[in-house]
């Protein structure tokens, strides 16, 4: 069969366009843009630089953890402990600095704590074969309890000699008036996207989510990789905790309560599949953005805050509904 050069090219362009329309992330981006446009016209308060500054910064905490969660979800796992790990990392940072240590030591201790918890989760899941749901559910309880032990359940708001540095780290805006947390999120998102697309590690994560047995048979080091993804997830929670501490200027033991659900919602809205094998860094960010825009708009439109859950839950169902409809069409 003679094939001219144009045929495959046309075919490729079509598939690129179809792929875009078929992508859940694409439609969520459209939804975010439409919501922003609508809000700019419907309210005076939305498109102000102060509000946009707030929105972008509020997105970041969920978005950073969602980036880490994306790794776990692509392998077909789940990490319910991120909210508590965020709290524990913040508390370790706060308590260390409150005791008079420098910010470097505080951050080091905080990151080390997060990584240790991630490694603990990962080893139980990969080597002992515990279900991820159960292990991380247990850790959700353990980590928050440890945060209470570390602080004796008090609020820490004085961070020793480096107090000002920490607040600048989380609350400042060093480049072009963009909130620092936003910058961190962009950098982390770029790293995540790079790792998922261009590294062997990223490829193997997708393989494990697609068919773990096949990955094992073809010589992919499945167990170490699984430990690594739970460490990455905990690390993301730890980083978010450090930044949030700097931004809030105080740490309480209920910091990050229920955050795991928001994070999972963000990744799922962004197109990750809880069954594994699918997910992107961009999707995690966009999902987090949609949740924040919904929250912000309800406030600006004067809708009672109690309705928040309904709208966010609705967004989750709608996003997944898109996915189902697509699959129905494909299986026909």
């Amino acid at each position, binding site marked *: 069969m003679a094939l001219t050069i144009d045929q495959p090219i046309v075919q490729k362009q079509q598939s690129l366009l179809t792929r875009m329309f078929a992508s859940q992330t694409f439609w969520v981006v459209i939804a975010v843009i439409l919501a922003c446009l609508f809000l700019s016209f419907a309210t005076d308060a939305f498109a102000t630089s102060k509000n946009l500054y707030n929105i972008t910064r509020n997105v970041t905490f969920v978005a950073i953890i969602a980036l880490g969660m994306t790794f776990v979800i692509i392998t077909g796992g789940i990490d319910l402990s991120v909210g508590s790990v965020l709290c524990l990392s913040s508390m370790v940072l706060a308590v260390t600095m409150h005791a008079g240590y420098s910010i470097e030591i505080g951050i080091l201790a905080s990151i080390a704590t997060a990584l240790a918890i991630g490694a603990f989760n990962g080893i139980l899941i990969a080597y002992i074969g515990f279900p991820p749901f159960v292990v991380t559910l247990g850790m959700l309880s353990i980590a928050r309890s440890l945060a209470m032990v570390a602080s004796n359940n008090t609020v820490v708001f004085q961070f020793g000699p480096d107090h000002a540095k920490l607040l600048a780290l989380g609350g400042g805006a060093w480049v072009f008036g963009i909130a620092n947390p936003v910058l961190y999120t962009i950098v982390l998102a770029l790293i995540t996207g790079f790792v998922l697309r261009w590294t*062997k590690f990223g490829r193997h994560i997708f393989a494990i989510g697609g068919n773990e047995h096949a990955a094992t048979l*073809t*010589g*992919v080091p499945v167990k170490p990789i699984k430990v690594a993804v739970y460490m990455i997830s905990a690390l993301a929670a730890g980083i978010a905790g450090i930044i949030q501490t700097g931004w809030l200027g105080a740490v309480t033991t209920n910091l990050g309560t229920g955050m795991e659900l928001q994070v999972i919602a963000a990744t799922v809205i962004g197109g990750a599949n809880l069954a594994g094998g*699918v997910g992107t860094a961009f999707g995690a960010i966009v999902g987090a953005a949609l949740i924040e825009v919904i929250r912000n708009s309800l406030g600006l439109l004067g809708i009672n805050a109690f309705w928040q859950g309904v709208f966010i839950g609705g967004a989750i169902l709608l996003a997944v509904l898109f996915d189902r409809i697509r699959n129905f069409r494909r299986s026909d």
Partner: protein
Amino acid sequence: MAVLELTNISKHFGAIQAVNDVSLSIEPGQVVGLMGDNGAGKSTLVKMIAGNFRPSHGSMRMDDKELILHKPVEARQHGIEIVHQDLALCNNLTAAANVYLGRELRRGIGPFRILDYAAMYKRAGQIFAELKSETRPRDLVKQMSGGQRQAVAIARTRLSQAKIVLMDEPTAAISVRQVAEVLNLIRRLRDQGISVVLISHRMPDVFDVADRVIVMRRGRKVADKTIASSSPEEVTGLITGAIEQV
């Protein structure tokens, strides 16, 4: 000279004698059909060659050198490739990604190395062309027919200089047309001088493509003869035990 030679191989799991005193040799470029009922010891035998199990007794020689395998990766290093019964494919990845799974090509300097998509697509495309398969390297495995999926799994064996390819029930769950496609793939491997061990329940496939048939029953080798000197009736008899041994 034989590529692979098994001498008095036995394997027992506790009191169960799965493979009992089996000797056989495989010549280069030969397709050997390995037949037998469930529990006859085919899989155990193949798993010893693939490095999943170590034999309890006996020895294996490859190209006249002692062959001792501790794990599947070592079998691969010796040029023994396996096409698993479930194909071991990831539906969410492209054909090329599946072919290269676990041995991805990368480019770059030192520790800064990224996946070399272009090279993997190119080489995978070449292999599919060699196998005369219509599989396209960029397509997701999810969207493929059974025959194409087989082609992807078989293409893996062409990445390295394989000497023997072990195929576990490659025609068990696919359509008639796709079976023909897979049998052609096997012939293509043979034409390149690769020995193929075809484990199958399907008599027509073995008689169609194999040069030799080995029949196992209750852990023992009960027949080892050329296809030309045997018949489906005889093999059926050997499998069921109606014919004791030839």
